[in-house]
């Protein structure tokens, strides 16, 4: 592209700007409103500029002692789960790039198959609880999520195929490196963009996962942050409803149910928002280089 079509560029920028605002506005509203006092929200509705900054909602959330514990559970699960699932994904994807591997076609078929079909909740639940007995263990938060990522496998495979010249691997083979060595010392170091990309997606998945906690965890010590927040949300709703019903001003009135809902959402996603900029550089790269040959 030598001559830039400025008209087209302006058009694109305007469209993108509008879309960005459409995405960012609710986010800003969410965060700022969560810092408003409950009475302001009731009086003036949700607002971008809080009349009075008020962190009662957050105090309420963190006054529940188990919040920190649940944070730790989720952080642990996210870290371990991300590393493990990135390993599983990259290994499987790498295997799929080996052309003369016996059974490669069956393997690819199976991977693609899971992308489109799954047994559904009840059979999986039965399998995990009756065969693997993961109920009320930390495994329940780690293992089920390890498996469902055919899309990640596909983009990783195409990244490997397009970005790692086979001659490099052959060189390593001649130099005397084992196949595992080649994978860990050559393939992985050359795949930072795609690892960061799928790593971030996996981290997001583990971080936001509350369903596995819902299905398999009853032990309070193993409840992750999202599941806990989800519980709180339900409870707040419940409290708010019962308050309306009785319309009796008790000490329940101090429960800031509106802002607390918002604060819960913020608490749930804040760490990922903070992490995103560090991954963004690779994230973009990984998505594009993975997709385009060259």
């Amino acid at each position, binding site marked *: 592209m030598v001559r830039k079509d400025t008209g087209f560029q302006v058009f694109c920028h305007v469209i993108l700007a509008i879309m960005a605002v459409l995405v960012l506005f609710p986010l800003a509203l969410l965060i700022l409103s969560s810092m408003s006092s409950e009475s302001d929200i009731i009086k003036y509705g949700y607002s971008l500029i809080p009349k009075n900054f008020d962190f009662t909602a957050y105090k309420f959330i963190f006054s529940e002692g188990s919040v920190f514990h649940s944070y730790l559970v989720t952080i642990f699960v996210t870290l371990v789960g991300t590393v493990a699932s990135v390993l599983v994904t990259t290994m499987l994807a790498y295997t799929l790039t080996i052309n003369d591997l016996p059974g490669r076609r069956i393997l690819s078929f199976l991977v693609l198959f899971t992308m489109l079909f799954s047994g559904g909740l009840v059979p999986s639940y039965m399998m995990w609880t009756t065969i693997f007995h993961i109920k009320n263990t930390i495994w329940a938060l780690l293992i089920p999520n390890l498996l469902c990522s055919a899309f990640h496998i596909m983009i990783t495979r195409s990244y490997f195929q397009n970005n790692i010249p086979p*001659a490099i691997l052959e060189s390593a083979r*001649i130099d*005397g490196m084992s196949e595992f060595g080649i994978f860990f010392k050559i393939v992985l170091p050359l795949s930072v963009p795609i690892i960061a990309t799928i790593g971030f997606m996996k981290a997001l998945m583990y971080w936001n996962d509350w369903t596995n906690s819902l299905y398999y965890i009853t032990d309070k010590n193993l409840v992750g942050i999202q599941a806990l927040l989800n519980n709180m949300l339900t409870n707040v709703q419940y409290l708010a409803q019962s308050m309306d019903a009785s319309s009796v001003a008790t000490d329940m009135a101090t429960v800031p149910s509106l802002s607390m809902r918002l604060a819960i959402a913020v608490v749930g996603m804040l760490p990922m928002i903070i992490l995103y900029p560090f991954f963004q550089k690779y994230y973009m790269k990984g998505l594009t280089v993975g997709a385009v040959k060259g």
Partner: protein
Amino acid sequence: MAEVKLVNIKKVYPYVSGEEKKKNKKKSADEPEKKKVNLQITDEGVVAVQAFNLDIKDKEFIVLVGPSGCGKSTTLRMVAGLEEISDGELYIDGKLMNDVAPKDRDIAMVFQNYALYPHMTVYDNMAFSLKLRHTPKDEIDKKVREAAEILDITQYLERKPKALSGGQRQRVAIGRAIVRAPKVMLMDEPLSNLDAKLRNEMRAEIIKLRQRINTTFMYVTHDQTEAMTLGDRIVIMKDGYIQQIGTPQEVFNHPANLFVAGFIGMPVMNFFDAELKREGDKFFVEVGGIKVELAPEKEARLLKNNVQSQPVTLGVRPEHTDVAEQGIASTVEVAEMMGSSVHLHLNADGKDVIVIVPTIDMKGSYKQGDTVHFTFDGKVAHVFSKETDKNLEF
């Protein structure tokens, strides 16, 4: 430092299902008018190499040369162990290597696209194989620096490959190969990614390198100049078959068949439809109204093969074709001044012929449309069978 022996080596790439039809179609589209059957495509798969027999002597520099797709890389990769050998035996230093892993063959390989480890410095690239073999640190250091010295890359040792030019990268790749002092050094078109000037420089470097490191070389190229300048012996391949093995001189002076004759030498050999006439023990070629007796040693060989009079393809190199008062008549189409010589592109009765005239011998100059007669000596005329394309002297 090893002898390499390839006995009846064959390589078949089996079809992945569905590929068969595609390949057939593609090949026929490539060569529309020639209705030649492609020998490489068979029921069992693509036969990339077959009936490959070669004894490489210790410290010999062997060059595999041939057009793209003729099976050079496949052969080299089988020696390296990167490709399974479908049939036949490979010996390195007398040991059967067919099922030995690449790392245990004591070979090193230089690839066309360098294949350096991008995330390691030049030093680490070169030290890598030694580290894997648990060589002591100070010895690694010594060897790497020695190799870097030879290749003149000492000042780049701490750089990453990305920060090097193509020529420097290929030096590093060669350095990586020589630190280990391999028994056999394999090179697959190592200069093909470089521009013409750099390629000439690196070619000279490889000749020097060869004198400094004493080892057996197998070198693949599609460039006949590279083959001629580097090789102790040249293996010329086509369609998976060896066409001829010989020293550069041998293949230049005695091409075994039409293909070799046309492939080796620049500009390309002139070919004529001619008649070979046997008169007793003497042989003559008749072409374009002239009759030339072949040299006695050629006659002796033809006699030994009991060759009879027959129509032949006559081959004469442009540098062996001379302008003369009498000879085959032709008109000048283009006269290219090359400095020490002029390349005359002639049209002899519809046939394109190139004649190289040394500038010193020239009387006046040549213009388009001039009539020129040319002739050749019986020592440099090659006669090829019309039926088999084989040199009748063989």
